[in-house]
């Protein structure tokens, strides 16, 4: 009997924003499809492991139905226990082989398959495509992530070295240890060309920075088959599926602004979307893709007119770089989001919109609401609201292409500021009891490092107001469970702790709100 490697070393669970039906529906809508409503849909996840991606979706979308399956039985059992503990009735996890998928599962509006395609043999890759073809509704959207060349060559290279190095060892822990040893030696000792050293070091540092289980599966599994994007698209086409878009809009457009590149793309690829994407990959040495597919019979509309933006809710974590951005003048202001993407503009309406979105983050607002708020902020002298929808639409699409704003079809259920009885999701409370990783209300995995925040999270079930939370905090400090700091100085005087508790709670709530963890 062969042991399923995912039974031996479970893959760490995560929620992947890009696989959420809201994201799939958003991209489908952007390109002219009529996808199923996110809050009334059927979702399938192929290779769902213990359901860490699917369970938060099921919890947040009680009227939708979720099915996940995985070949490894242990994670499935663990997921089923969590589902039972949360009392969820709209999700099923099955232990099943992808080759055994039949129509009995029913049809799905959204199918997600993350981190499987590149790590399974050809028959399984075929089976993934076949499942998408036969199980997807006519307006359904499938998400598949996979490693792509040319970037994956670097990973291929380091993987083969590591696999060779550990060839004499079968014990998982020792394989991981030996692979790490080799990685370190190569990082320190690499003496090829500068370019090789750079490639090698960057890749190995990435590999070594990840957890043991990721290293074990992604870099020591013998099966690894990256493809070129055009090969992936051809594979999909053999199963009657076409490329809709990347799950990240901005990853299709990173180079849009460079005229030299645009000109060459037109020359090499014309209007062919797959070809254009392929050449993009060449430019940026892409190593990973999250692609969305739909049936070949669906007609897509790739013209992105400003009116498209009106279909969405918008949110943005971006902030103006200057303290007091000038909105009403033509002064150029720079806005940046926390991961570093930025945009600079002197357009009053654009600036006003980003300021409003930043203020509301993480909450989203409809296009019209945003337009109204921005125009109000600009004052009565500014041109009237109804003439400016296209101006704002164009700007928001540009921001979306630059990863500065998010588009949604369903309002994420998070609040900008904590209410009277602050609350995080039951799932987040369950997760924080297991470790430091929680799923936020935008379906991202968040690492909560602050021990105080971890303790507080458990208490945020909507039954405590700020006074009650402060009192609990004082108890925790006095029992020595957590420590409060003023600057770097530890505070032991209980009176000072009592004075500071209210402020500390307020700061933590603000931080949790910013991380999109607060439901109320």
């Amino acid at each position: 009997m062969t042991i399923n490697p995912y039974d031996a070393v479970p893959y760490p669970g995560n929620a992947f924003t890009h696989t959420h039906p809201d994201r799939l529906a958003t991209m489908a809508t952007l390109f002219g499809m009529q996808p199923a409503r996110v809050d009334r849909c059927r979702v399938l996840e192929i290779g769902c492991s213990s359901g860490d991606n699917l369970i938060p979706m099921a919890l947040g979308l009680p009227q939708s139905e979720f099915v996940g399956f995985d070949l490894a039985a242990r994670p499935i059992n663990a997921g089923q226990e969590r589902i039972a503990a949360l009392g969820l009735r709209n999700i099923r996890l099955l232990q099943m082989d992808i080759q055994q998928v039949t129509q009995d599962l029913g049809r799905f509006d959204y199918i997600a398959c993350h981190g499987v395609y590149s790590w399974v043999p050809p028959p399984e890759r075929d089976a993934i495509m076949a499942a998408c073809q036969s199980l997807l509704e006519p307006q359904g959207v499938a998400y598949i992530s996979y490693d792509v060349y040319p970037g994956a060559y670097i990973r291929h290279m380091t993987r083969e070295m590591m696999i060779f190095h550990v060839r004499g060892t079968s014990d998982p822990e020792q394989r991981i240890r030996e692979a790490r040893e080799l990685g370190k030696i190569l990082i320190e000792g690499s003496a090829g060309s500068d370019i090789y050293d750079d490639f090698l070091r960057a890749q190995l540092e990435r590999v070594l920075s990840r957890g043991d289980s990721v290293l074990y599966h992604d870099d020591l599994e013998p099966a690894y088959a990256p493809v070129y994007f055009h090969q992936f698209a051809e594979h999909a086409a053999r199963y009657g599926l076409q490329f809709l878009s990347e799950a990240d809009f901005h990853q299709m457009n990173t180079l849009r602004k460079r005229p030299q590149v645009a000109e060459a793309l037109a020359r090499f690829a014309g209007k062919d979307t797959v070809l254009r994407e392929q050449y993009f990959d060449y430019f940026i040495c892409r190593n990973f893709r999250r692609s969305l597919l739909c049936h070949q019979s669906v007609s897509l509309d790739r013209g992105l007119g400003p009116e498209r933006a009106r279909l969405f809710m918008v949110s943005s974590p971006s902030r103006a770089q200057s303290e007091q951005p000038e909105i009403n003048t033509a002064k150029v202001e720079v806005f940046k989001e926390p991961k570093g993407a930025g945009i600079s503009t002197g357009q009053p309406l654009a600036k006003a919109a980003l300021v409003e979105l930043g203020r509301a983050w993480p909450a989203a607002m409809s296009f019209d609401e945003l337009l109204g708020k921005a125009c109000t902020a600009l004052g009565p002298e500014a041109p009237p609201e109804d003439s400016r929808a296209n101006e704002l639409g164009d700007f928001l699409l540009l921001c979306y292409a630059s990863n500065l704003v998010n588009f949604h079809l369903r309002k994420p259920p998070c609040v900008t500021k904590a209410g009277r009885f602050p609350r995080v999701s039951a799932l987040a409370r369950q997760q924080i009891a297991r470790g430091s990783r929680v799923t936020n209300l935008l379906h991202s995995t968040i690492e909560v490092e602050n021990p105080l925040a971890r303790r507080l999270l458990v208490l945020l079930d909507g039954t405590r107001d700020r006074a009650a939370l402060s009192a609990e905090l004082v108890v925790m400090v006095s029992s020595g469970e957590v420590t409060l700091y003023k600057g770097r100085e530890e505070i032991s005087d209980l009176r000072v702790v009592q004075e500071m508790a209210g402020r500390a709670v307020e700061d933590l709530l603000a931080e949790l709100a910013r991380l999109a963890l607060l439901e109320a």
Partner: protein
Amino acid sequence: MTVNLYDEFVYPGHSIPQSHPDNLATLATLFGMTPAPVDHCRVLEIGCGDGGNLIPMAFALPDSRFVGFDLAARPIATGSARANVLGLKNIELHALDIMDVPADFGTFDYILCHGVYSWVPDAVKVKLLEICRQHLAPAGVAYVSYDTHPGGHLRGMLREMMLYHVREISDPAEKARQARALVKFLSEAKGSSDSYGSYLREEWAGFTDRTDSDILHDELERNYSPIWFHQFMAHAREHGLQYLADAMFHTMNPRDLPAEAARVVREVAQRDNVIGEQYLDFLTCRFFRRTLLCHQDVPLDRALPPEKARAFYVASSAKTTAQGEDLRSDAVVEFKGGKGVGLTTSHPLAKTALALLGRIWPRALHFEQLLLRTRAALELPPSQDEAEQTREALKLGDVLLRTYAGGLVEFHVHPARFASQPGPRPMVSALVRLQAAEGDTITTPSHATVHLADDLVREILKLLDGTRDLATVVGEIVARIESGEIPLQQNGAPLHNRESVWRAVTEKVDLTLAESAQWGLFLA
């Protein structure tokens, strides 16, 4: 019918110095074999093209026999014609499919196969190694070169992009043009300073001085399968062949590695030398290997005690600025070779020997002769003490082995013969004159390929047949310039003044003679 790509675009043949029987015999001797004498041996080259590698060998070793074959008929015809012009009786070139090599093809002391293995289907790879097994003499040495990882992965990255880009083009010239266009574009579009940007720019820099046929053969050939060294050796073992050495000895030895990496390589190598070298490839991003193989049952002696050096001729281009007292004293002196390799030593014997070799480069001296001349240079009195003599020889042997391992000196068993200086009527070989007449690359007696700077150098070399003195050479060239037969320009403008033409040609002839002496072109 499939067209042989190598017929359509002739792959320019040139000499592969590392594949010369002298180099193969040297490494075989170093590791304890008794290979056939280089001047009386039988050599087979698989995929010999137009004989660019084999003809210069046959020319220089008249008592050895050379057989080459290639699938492409046109280069074979060109090569055979060239061998005829040179009057060579010791070489045969055949148009032959490797799969049709008959069992009675004969036995060879050296089998060479350069740039084939990575570019052919699996069945041909198998046949290639099978020929090495069946047709190699018991003490024979085979040379097989191939593309290897991890470098092959980097190379494959750009290769596949080009292949996809030209997928619908059938005209070879257009293919090469489009491949160039893509790489040029990517290298320019990728303005960023990340490693991918540097990679693209470096690849493009490498493209600029490559011909269309280079690009077609090296980059756009369909079959391309680089492998890891350990995989190649596993394949060779299946055919009863074992690893003898790398044709470039210095690549077998860790250099400039951090202590921890060097320790790991040494530790692994002690258990299995193939795997030790595999880890070196990991660390140095090896792209290409030239592997020497011999029969599995040949006992090898991998120990390298200093007395082993005494069997060889040595040569070195190492240069030092130090002289006189610095060489005789205990002062630390640095020697530098090509490609950045260097050595610092304070030992008077080592310093004097290396300085001596550098002065007479490219000539080689036998170890014992080098020892004698070094002693003389150090003005040591002739020693009667045998133990003392042995100690000195071992010291020199130790230094030479280490500098050989470092890539600073060459070892030979059969060094090329040539004169250090041109005589009053300078003479280069009929081969060099023929090559200069045909194109801009020549093969030196040491089997190196040299690219000639311009047409004037070619014209000068063609005249060096031992019948003319320098004044006659200059006079003939000047006359042909004046008649307009040879263009001569200086700073972009033609020269009109007779005296300046004369001066320019004299300088050029002097320079050409000096360079030719450095390349070892003059016949003794």
